[in-house]
């Protein structure tokens, strides 16, 4: 087995493990931490179904961001929707035979990639040009944008400049999935692309990328407005005694 294959196999296994364990641990922490008070940002839905719809609008349409800043919304939608299309397109490397709808999505995936890179450039431009946003930006905020841009641009380079052997790459990916390692194509652009994807997975649970699971757990968005009808009591708060006239 070529040493390059071993390195990349281990890198990708490691990155996937860090991602899955790290994000699961974070989600577990969020789920386990109580929300002791009813704090939905009002007006809020008065039913559980209404809350599901509210969170779905937040996740799918970035509703609050739309209220806030149209340009940021446009760039954010371009990036996230583009990324989603690209991820769906890349499913073809992981499944055999390829599902019908994954075949359908292939041409859109390329446009998705363009949209993603354009959105990222827009977000980077905002961060550099608007004094308010520049003020609140840390080095990590720029680095994550650059990492995502690197992934997008290297992907394009593989598609348009230095085409890689897709058949042997797919064999490599399936080999990882079924623990039957196959050699990784030694295309430097592909290796760069893979390294950056691995870096993204590793960084995910330790960075602001936690906004992805976080949005589902934000009490201001996921609580039902029913404080008068239903008593809401956190376990630690239920333990409190004294601190006033006991009645």
């Amino acid at each position, binding site marked *: 087995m070529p040493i390059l294959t071993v390195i990349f196999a281990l890198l990708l296994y490691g990155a996937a493990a860090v991602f899955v364990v790290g994000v699961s641990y974070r989600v577990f922490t969020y789920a386990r931490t109580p929300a002791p008070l*009813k704090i939905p940002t009002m*007006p809020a839905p008065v039913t559980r179904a209404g809350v599901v719809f509210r969170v779905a609008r937040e996740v799918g349409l970035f509703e609050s961001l739309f209220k806030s800043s149209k340009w940021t919304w446009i760039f954010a939608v371009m990036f996230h929707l583009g990324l989603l299309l690209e991820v769906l397109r890349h499913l073809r490397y992981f499944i055999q035979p390829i599902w019908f709808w994954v075949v359908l999505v292939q041409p859109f995936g390329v446009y998705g990639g363009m949209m993603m890179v354009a959105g990222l450039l827009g977000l980077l431009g905002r961060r550099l040009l608007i004094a308010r946003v520049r003020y609140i930006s840390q080095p990590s905020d720029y*680095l994550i944008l650059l990492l995502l841009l690197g992934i997008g641009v290297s992907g394009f380079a593989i598609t348009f400049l230095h085409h890689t052997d897709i058949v042997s790459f797919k064999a490599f990916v399936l080999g990882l999935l079924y623990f039957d390692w196959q050699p990784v194509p030694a295309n430097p652009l592909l290796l760069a692309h893979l390294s950056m994807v691995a870096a993204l997975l590793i960084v995910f649970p330790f960075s602001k990328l*936690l906004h992805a699971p976080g949005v589902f757990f*934000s009490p201001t968005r996921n609580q039902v*407005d029913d404080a008068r009808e239903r*008593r809401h009591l956190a376990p630690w708060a239920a333990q409190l005694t004294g601190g006033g006239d006991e*009645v």
Partner: protein
Amino acid sequence: MAKVDFKVPAVEEYLKTPELQPGAMAKSAPFKAAPRHQEALGFPGELVEDWERRAVAKLADLLKKYRSLRVHLDACVKCGSCADKCQYFLGTGDPKNMPVARQDLLRSIYRRHFTLAGKLFPRLVGARDLDPSVLEEWYGYFHQCSQCRRCSVFCPYGIDTAEISMAAREILDEIGIGQKYCNEILGKVHTLGNNLGLPAPALANTLEGLEEDVKEDTGADVRFPLDVQGAEVLLIAPSADFFAEPHIDGLIGYAKVFHQAGVSWTLSSYASEAANFAMFIGNYEQMRKVALRIRKAAIDLKVKRIIVGECGHAWRVAYSFWNTLAGPFDFLDPRYPVPQHIIEFTHDLIERGAIKLDKEANDHMRVTFHDSCNVARATRMGARPGGQFVLPREVIKASCNHFFDMAPETIGEKTFCCGGGGGLLTDELLELRVKGALPRMQALREVHKEHGVTHMAAICAICKSQFSKVLPYYEFPMETIVSVHQLVSNAIQLGKNS
């Protein structure tokens, strides 16, 4: 014109996002609590020796208790969409008054102590060590947040700076740095039952005086009952309603409404305060203690319903937290929500035709309505979401002929704070309060020019006090601010129901 030792911001044609002015408000800070104010609440009297360790331990404790804090510290992507939404940033230009930057004052410490990235690469992720300058910065800038939640409306993850500033104030109290205004007042509530420290005989005296005034004005025997056992309704009003203008005109309005509806009611001298400043300092136990006084008063007086007067943050605590803190209220009449807002009560009477209002009584006013931040973004009225915007307006429109809303981006869920909420209604913060009122003053100026609006009604004791103080800085008469139930009081037809 009031005396000014700072520059009152210019009111422009439209609201401008200011240039960044780093450090512009670095010196703004409220007076610190004296040891006796701190110790009365069980906090250390002065800065404890091992403050760094205890601050981090308290943060760890809060992270375990509050999911909002944990998620909101993690999830921010620094998109900046909240940055131009805070009235204190818009009024001062100080970048640390951008909600995200305010959060970062705490987030930087969180990252240093509780995240791997912050432990390994502090510079990369904006993590920093806790040192005395951080404490000063926390004290200054977390007391430049009115916890109005406007930023949370615009945040794609619902990150609520109020939650962060409450946590920061809680940590500061824990290590012995308290704010005098809030903590002194909480001590008074625990001992005397209200923020003013008004003892029961003085309260009884005030209410008697009001009965005489109303009798003289209207000829009607409108009562202001105190500690009446077996009354139908316990009214919990902010204590400012007992003496301040225009609050007291609102109290007279409530009394006339009860009188005309024929519903027996009472105030309590034991729980003579709707306000609960423990929310401002983020302390659950203190907030519970204040809420339990009201529960006890309701039980002792054997009332069937509790109604809350015009007070914004009090309505938040009552509507959203009472059931949690002091419930269940199963000893009250289950046919009514617990608690009810006085606006809900009056609105229902108007809808049923149970009280008659003569709108012409308010024809000398052209009125607009200021949605109070806590009512707008942290509570509801009536059965449907958004009732907190609809019901007060319907009560106003039933009481006067000339009503005009301010610009849509400044009302409803997007309303601006008056500039004095969240425990900032204290004289030493006057500069901040005047500057923070800029967005509201700009919107008011607009309806004043366009529609000749002369009065702005509000349903919050803090809003009313704040506007009385800051309106003159913007060349409006202080009488511009009125209580909603003051309009009702002017219009209500006593003794003419049928």
